[in-house]
């Protein structure tokens, strides 16, 4: 429940899943006041602290200046730490952070594939993307199994890792369709029952109910 002492937030990002979705879900799960701005792009580029999005603005209620940060992973970790979605135990937190960082590598491999020009290059880069994606799915599936197969990666409650993983698969199965029309069909066969259960567990979490389906129904897409 937002009180007078709770900061409020503005997320500046594009109107897309991309690197904004985890931030939206963290802000929603934290139950704080927040709004979103979609700057005109590239016109607003010079007006951003570092020329890029997302940007998070934290406004205090005590008159102190706004706290502004950028870099999606940094924003996510800041919110996750502040609102209890990352453990205070540094080892446990690191185990969650590393899966998010691996996800970013998978996304980079996909971007690398999109940039390929020759047929030979496209084939090679798609293969690299598949390799790292399959590794990522195997790592995450093991995490879910080791955690008692409850549809959660770590512990018993909605975690940063759960949210980041959900957002990642949402990009892969829905968000990236505009870049590669058959990406959904390409990715679906690789999903394990454990991953599908995680997707469903996150999507039905009451803390996220306000917005989670706004960008699409991922459970429906991966089960179809």
């Amino acid at each position, binding site marked *: 429940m937002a009180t007078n002492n709770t900061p409020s937030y503005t997320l500046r990002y594009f109107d897309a899943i991309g690197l904004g979705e985890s931030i939206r879900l963290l802000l929603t799960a934290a139950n704080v006041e927040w709004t979103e701005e979609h700057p005109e792009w590239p016109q607003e580029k010079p007006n951003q602290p*570092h020329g890029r999005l997302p940007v998070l603005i934290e406004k205090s209620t005590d008159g102190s200046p706004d706290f502004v940060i950028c*870099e999606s992973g940094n924003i996510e970790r800041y919110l996750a730490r502040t609102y209890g979605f990352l453990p205070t135990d540094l080892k446990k937190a*690191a185990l969650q*952070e*590393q899966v998010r960082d691996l996800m970013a590598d998978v996304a980079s491999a996909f971007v690398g594939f999109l940039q390929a020009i020759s047929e030979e290059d496209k084939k090679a880069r798609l293969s690299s993307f598949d390799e790292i994606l399959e590794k990522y799915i195997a790592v995450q599936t093991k995490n879910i199994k080791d955690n008692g197969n409850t549809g959660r990666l770590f512990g018993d409650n909605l975690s940063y890792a759960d949210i980041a993983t959900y957002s990642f698969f949402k990009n892969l199965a829905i968000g990236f369709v505009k870049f590669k029309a058959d990406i959904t069909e390409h990715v679906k066969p690789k999903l394990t029952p454990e991953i599908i259960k995680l997707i469903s567990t996150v999507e039905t979490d009451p803390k996220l109910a306000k917005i989670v389906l706004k960008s699409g129904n991922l459970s429906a897409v991966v089960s179809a």
Partner: protein
Amino acid sequence: MSAQSFSYILRYFDLIGRGETCRLLLAAGEVDWVEEHPEWPQDKEKQPFGRLPVLIEKSADGSELVLSESSTIERYLGRIFGLLPADPRASAIQEQMCDRQADIIAACLVYAQVTAEEDKKMYLANIDDLFTRMAKSHMEILSANNCKSHLFGDKLSFADISLYAFYKMMGMYMGCYLKDAVKITKEKVTPEIVHLLASIEAEPLLASHLSKCESLAARLSQ
């Protein structure tokens, strides 16, 4: 936390790449640590994510923590050694600088794979823009700090180490990926940043590692 009760193994290739910041952090942590250079790709499947670097933290009781992903390893070491502030806001400011630097390095590696001339021009312009903004940000942080030998406060921090490794990568090793990397780096550094790099290089805690290396500050002053 008693540093003496833990020892560390850093598994990486024998190059600067994504390992240098980890090496400097381990040196600054004054802990027992060694480096392993796995056979590659023979040892790929032995790694948790099939990738390097990997950090293994061994406790005195025999338990192990195995971490992957360079940025996670760097932040973990930064936190346990007290080089990253405990305050989330102060930490976010340092982490953001480090993430931006990592983006620039990643952009250079992508540039190296681009073949079409027009595309190369566009990617290079983007790298130049990011690097210009980054250097400006470094100067802003330094100007706001009373002590000019450190980015924050008056002691060696995560940000100092991260910045040093970034300029080392761009100024001494990126040339094989980006032909004009050294020239571009020299254009962006200011005397104040060179002074900062020289101060970091002179840190006793980093001497165990940097005494074996060429001076970055000297190289960028040429």
